């Protein structure tokens, strides 16, 4: 049983810089919890405060309900994998893994048994007598993970453990970590800047930016219901398309109008724009104001007729990824399919399956999947269609999980 709670935790450096500000989150027992965000957003700082390597400037840290701000790292019984692995350079792999057990004065045979079993699990049994310098990056990484999991720690903290590996190895280790988490059934707090890692491994993800927690939610929750434009852009690859639009109401109904785009909008969107949505904090009238429409690359459907199209797509670059391919190109107004006056805007990205049928015109009629659209306030960046109260993403996530 181990539950780690941060209550209003902040880290203020001496130069007056808040590396982490008012972080509130509870990491549950057995959870694979990810902290994600761009470089310098305070992920490592948060993890290091949990580990006790960094003093908490204000707020409280509870480990299993016990206030732990003042506990030394030695007293917290956590295990950590460092970004640079931090292997003891003059010790063999065996001694590296055995170190935390030796510190705890376990009997020799017991230590040997546990090290062997961990080495076996990670496939490094043959390396036990080598020094770290004689290991490859992937092997070092395994030793670092082995050193952490050999002990029955309350939680495993990992700071970008895969960031120094090449892409192939990283993909392999991702699978292995997932397997390991299931097997150990342990609480893991994992820091990464790689959203693929986060999406594939996490039970829940905490997105940070400039030291401030943006959203805490399950991966698909984040993906489908980002709280703001930052989260929407950070999660998902290729990035969500952001298209400037305005709302318009006329005889044909309520719609979103971009330079070269017209999307019929449903009631949810209409009420969000008019500010009478159920969501109080988002209230405000956005009619006539500039908005940003967010559409994920896979949320476009090629259609056969110009009439049904929201816009025409003119591909400029095709990236073939094997089963999928990515089309980079421009939007052209569907009302003016042959127009020469089209204004080129930022390119958008559309992802297609291999077997999607597309007309072989230069310009492909496209529809947007309205159900997955997001609508952002360009000033605050907040998502008008976010279904919860932004102030309390925790409860929202919980509610959703129970639903």
């Amino acid at each position: 049983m181990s539950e780690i709670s941060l209550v209003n935790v902040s880290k203020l450096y001496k130069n007056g810089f808040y590396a982490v500000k008012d972080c509130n989150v509870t990491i549950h027992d057995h959870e694979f919890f990810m902290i994600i965000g761009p470089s310098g957003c305070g992920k490592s700082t948060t993890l290091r405060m949990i580990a006790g390597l960094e003093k908490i400037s204000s707020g409280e840290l509870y480990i299993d309900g016990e206030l732990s701000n003042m506990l030394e790292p030695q007293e917290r019984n956590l295990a950590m994998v460092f970004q640079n692995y931090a292997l003891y350079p003059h010790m063999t792999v065996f001694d590296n893994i055995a170190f935390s057990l030796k510190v705890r004065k376990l009997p020799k045979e017991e230590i040997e048994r546990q090290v062997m079993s961990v080495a076996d699990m990670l496939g490094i049994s043959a390396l036990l007598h080598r020094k770290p310098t004689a290991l490859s990056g992937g092997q070092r990484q395994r030793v670092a993970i082995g050193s952490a999991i050999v002990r029955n720690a309350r939680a495993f903290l990992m700071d970008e453990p895969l960031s120094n590996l090449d892409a192939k190895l990283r993909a392999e280790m991702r699978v292995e970590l997932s397997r390991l988490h299931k097997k150990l059934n342990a609480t893991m707090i994992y820091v990464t800047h790689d959203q693929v890692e986060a999406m594939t491994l996490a039970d829940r993800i905490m997105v940070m930016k400039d030291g401030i927690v943006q959203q805490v939610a399950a991966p698909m929750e984040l993906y489908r219901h980002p709280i703001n434009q930052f989260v929407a852009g950070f999660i998902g690859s290729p990035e969500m398309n952001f298209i400037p639009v305005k709302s318009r109401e006329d005889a044909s109904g309520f719609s979103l109008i971009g330079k070269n785009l017209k999307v019929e909008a449903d009631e949810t969107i209409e009420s969000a724009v008019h500010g009478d949505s159920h969501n109080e904090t988002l209230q405000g009238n956005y009619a006539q104001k500039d908005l940003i429409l967010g559409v994920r690359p896979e949320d476009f459907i090629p259609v056969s007729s110009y009439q049904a199209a929201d816009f025409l797509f003119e591909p400029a670059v095709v990236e073939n990824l094997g089963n999928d391919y990515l089309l980079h190109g421009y939007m052209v107004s569907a009302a003016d399919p042959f127009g020469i006056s089209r204004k080129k805007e930022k390119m958008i990205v559309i992802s297609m399956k291999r077997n999607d049928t597309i007309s072989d015109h230069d310009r492909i009629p496209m529809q947007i999947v309205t159900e997955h659209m997001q609508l952002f306030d360009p000033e605050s960046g907040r998502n008008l269609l976010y279904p919860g109260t932004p102030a309390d993403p925790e409860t929202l996530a919980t509610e959703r999980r129970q639903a």
Partner: protein
Amino acid sequence: MNHSSSRISRIRNVFSATEPYLYLVPSILIFSIFLFWPFFKTIYLSFYKTNKLGQAKLFVGIGNYKELFQSSAFINSLYVTLVFVIIVVSISMLLGLIGAILCNKTFPGIRFFSTAYALPMAIASSSAAMIFRIMLHPSIGIVNKLLHLNINWLADPRYALVLVAILTGWLNSGIDFLYFSAGLASIDETIYERASVDGAGPVRQFVHLTLPGLSPILFYTIVVNIIQAFQSFGQVKILTQGGPGDATNLIVYSIYRDAFFNYRFGSAAAESVILFVIIMCLTLLMF
């Protein structure tokens, strides 16, 4: 035309073959005059009896060496030197190590402390010895004042050697501080963080991380310290002149006495050679 160009190219070849050696000439010259020549001259002299001007007069073979090993004064010198070196090396390395460890963390005022620990390096041994002598002065010295004692420290054979060794140890600790600071800086900080998360306290961290991390530099430092300790001279000359009795008559001081007071240059040369052999053996043994 053809002829002259081949001549030029030949000259060029000769030049490019000799060029590297030309660059070595100045340093070889300096080494020869100030190092090799005196060194071989010393070995040469050690086989002779000399006149008062230090000119070789009578070849005695290994006679000078024989005499030395039969003289109780020289054996005493060897013994005193051994004790002295052990004390000096222990003190200087310990001081340097402690200072370096204390200054390895940044804290307000670290510059002051770093400077303070490295300072002995910048103090001439003779001026330090002068200050030390005043401090140890039986009637006006601060040591006696503070301890409410009345001991003539430097005149007492029980204390003299130890005190000279302490001073020397402190003087040599500055350079050790630098070596150890460099050594500590080369140890990856995060292994300490990992160790503390792993549950290891400061003592275990020191034993399992710091010492092994310092071991390459530790070794080098020991060698340098031993050599340096063997060659201490200024502080002995100023504090005790080898006395009381022969209590602080280190080999280097005994060489100086033999040569410039007793005018036995041959014997002094033989002592020098012995000192050289001892240091060389120790160094080789260590490497």
